[in-house]
């Protein structure tokens, strides 16, 4: 005879009564797990959509204003390119894309254009130290757009338009905005003379309706060399990911670059923060309801079980069981109930989310194994807390009254 045998036999013997207690916790956990699954993948979908809106954090020279930036980001102030390395090597989480740039006005014939130097992604990856720092994959906790299952990466031109990121850009290559290409009469594959250097046009970008349409993009280092500005930048655009924006990312960037100005693009960030907060609040609301309903169900079952077993408890006390042993008997039963409810609830909730997620939320849902741990932990905690008072009542039963001998 062991404590587990004693508890297990009783559980099996009264399995039909156990069903009510089990269902209370099982259904509760299933709902929580299901909501967590759907909200996680919905959050990722929202993050992906927001990510496509472009950069949400800007790093500008201290004296520059957002107004300067929006007027074709050609403020005269510059900041050192080292800032990019500093961010790449830092422990700042949630940097999904990092786009340093230097913009200068250029005149071609009678017309004025903006020449913007950008750094292709291949150069980030080529730098071993940056690669080791994993700057583009350090969005821990939340999966960003590039990591989404089934996410089809946009074409190079689209990425450039949205994020000003291109995979490869040679030092003598240029990309033309749609309007600039039309005005200059140059197509993809053509040649362009700029600041005394000949560039081959790799691509003409799709129309965006923004200042980018009149922009010419070239390699950052080439623009720096041609303008004699050295390793300088006008701005660093960052696509910050998910909750990290609100959980210290901007503060960390400010601390990292005290000589620069870190600003968020409020509409994008606000939308992201509000969406995440709404989902988090919804989950918490359901969690509270489930804890109350599940806990009440378990407590009700355990009180009934203690009442039914008064004689048995009295007998065990007469045979030498102390109140501590009686407490352990009921709490072990509660823990087993919690573990079973957690595992069952996780499986049912996951199945429900996988099956209904695409129909109800329009997202593909995959099982999240980590939720099993949380489901079992939550379920066991609810079961133990809800059972504590019934168990304590059992431990404090008057054995004489329970034996009905007096």
């Amino acid at each position, binding site marked *: *005879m062991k*404590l587990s*045998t004693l508890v297990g036999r009783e559980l099996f013997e009264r399995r039909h009564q156990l069903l009510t207690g089990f269902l209370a916790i099982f259904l509760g956990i299933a709902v929580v797990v299901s909501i967590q699954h759907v909200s996680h993948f919905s959050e990722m979908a929202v993050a992906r959509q927001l990510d496509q809106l472009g950069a949400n954090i800007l790093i500008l020279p201290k004296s520059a204003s957002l107004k300067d930036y929006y007027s074709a980001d050609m403020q005269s102030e510059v900041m050192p390119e080292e800032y990019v390395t500093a961010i790449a090597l830092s422990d700042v989480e949630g940097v999904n894309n990092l786009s340093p740039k230097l913009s200068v006005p250029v005149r071609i014939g009678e017309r004025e254009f903006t020449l913007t130097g950008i750094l292709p992604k291949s150069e980030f990856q080529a730098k071993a130290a940056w690669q080791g720092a994993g700057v583009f994959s350090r969005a821990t906790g939340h999966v960003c757009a590039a990591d989404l299952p089934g996410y089809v990466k946009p074409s190079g031109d689209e990425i450039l338009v949205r994020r000003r990121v291109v995979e490869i850009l040679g030092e003598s290559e240029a990309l033309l905005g749609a309007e600039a290409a039309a005005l200059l009469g140059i197509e993809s594959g053509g040649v362009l003379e700029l600041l005394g250097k000949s560039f081959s046009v790799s691509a003409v970008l799709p129309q965006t309706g923004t200042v980018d349409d009149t922009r010419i993009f070239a390699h950052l280092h080439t623009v720096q060399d041609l303008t004699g500005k050295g390793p300088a930048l006008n701005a660093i655009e960052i696509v910050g990911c998910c909750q990290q924006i609100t959980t210290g990312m901007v503060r960390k960037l400010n601390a990292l670059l005290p000589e620069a100005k870190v600003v968020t693009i409020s509409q994008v960030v606000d939308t992201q923060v509000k969406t995440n907060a709404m989902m988090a609040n919804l989950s918490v609301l359901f969690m509270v309801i489930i804890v109350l309903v599940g806990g009440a169900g378990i407590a009700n079952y355990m009180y009934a079980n203690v009442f039914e077993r008064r004689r048995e408890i009295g007998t065990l006390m*007469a045979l030498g069981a102390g109140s501590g*042993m009686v407490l352990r008997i009921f709490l072990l039963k509660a823990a087993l109930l919690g573990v079973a409810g957690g595992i069952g609830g996780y499986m049912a909730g996951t199945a429900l989310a996988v099956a209904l997620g695409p129909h109800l939320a329009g997202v593909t849902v995959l099982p999240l194994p980590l939720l099993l741990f949380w489901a079992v932990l939550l379920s066991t905690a609810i079961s133990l807390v809800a059972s504590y008072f019934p168990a304590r009542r059992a431990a404090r039963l008057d054995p*004489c009254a329970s034996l009905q001998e007096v």
Partner: protein
Amino acid sequence: MLRMEHVDKEYHHRGKLVRALHNVTLEIERGEFVAVVGPSGSGKSTFLLLFGGMLSPSSGRVLFDGASLGDLSAEERARLRARRTGFVFQTFNLVPYLTALENVMVPLFLAGMEESAQRERAEGLLARVGLEGRLDHKPSELSVGQQQRVALARMLANDPEVILADEPTGNLDPETSRSILDFLVELHREGKTIVLVTHDPRVAERAGRSLRLVEGAIVEDGRHEFAVVG
């Protein structure tokens, strides 16, 4: 071995004060077989439970082998019951979802014995009460006489010095009742101290000493000359 000193026991039942025992003082020597008789509600069971440390007196002291039970903590009283006292109940109080063998193993488990040793001792005890062929039967699969014999085996599990029996033959037919009493007499011969509550004078006659309780007070305390003759 067992002693009560000016014990009063009162409790409330449905808002009314009930006096179960009043100023009881007595001593039971080691190895005595004492029957406690009296009408229903006279305080017999309260008397037994006080000796078992399952009730505390409202006033006075209950001593077990010189130690006041009131001075022991609840856990210490539980350990005392587990190691030195055996209870037998009128309604047997077997755990319904455990087999005969497991029921006998319960007190051994509560006393902290290893599982293999529990099993060995429980099998031996069930063999002693003639139930070696019913080890895996649940109480509902046994006759009432067999159930009481399982309860006796369970009571003997930790080889108690004191046996507290509350109407152990109350629910049994005459023949089974006789065999249970014979068994208790045999245990008495082996040196156990037995306190047996009964309302049946014929059962009380098998004991060496009879206490008569009326309205919570001992009104008679007598010894029988031929007490243990079967």
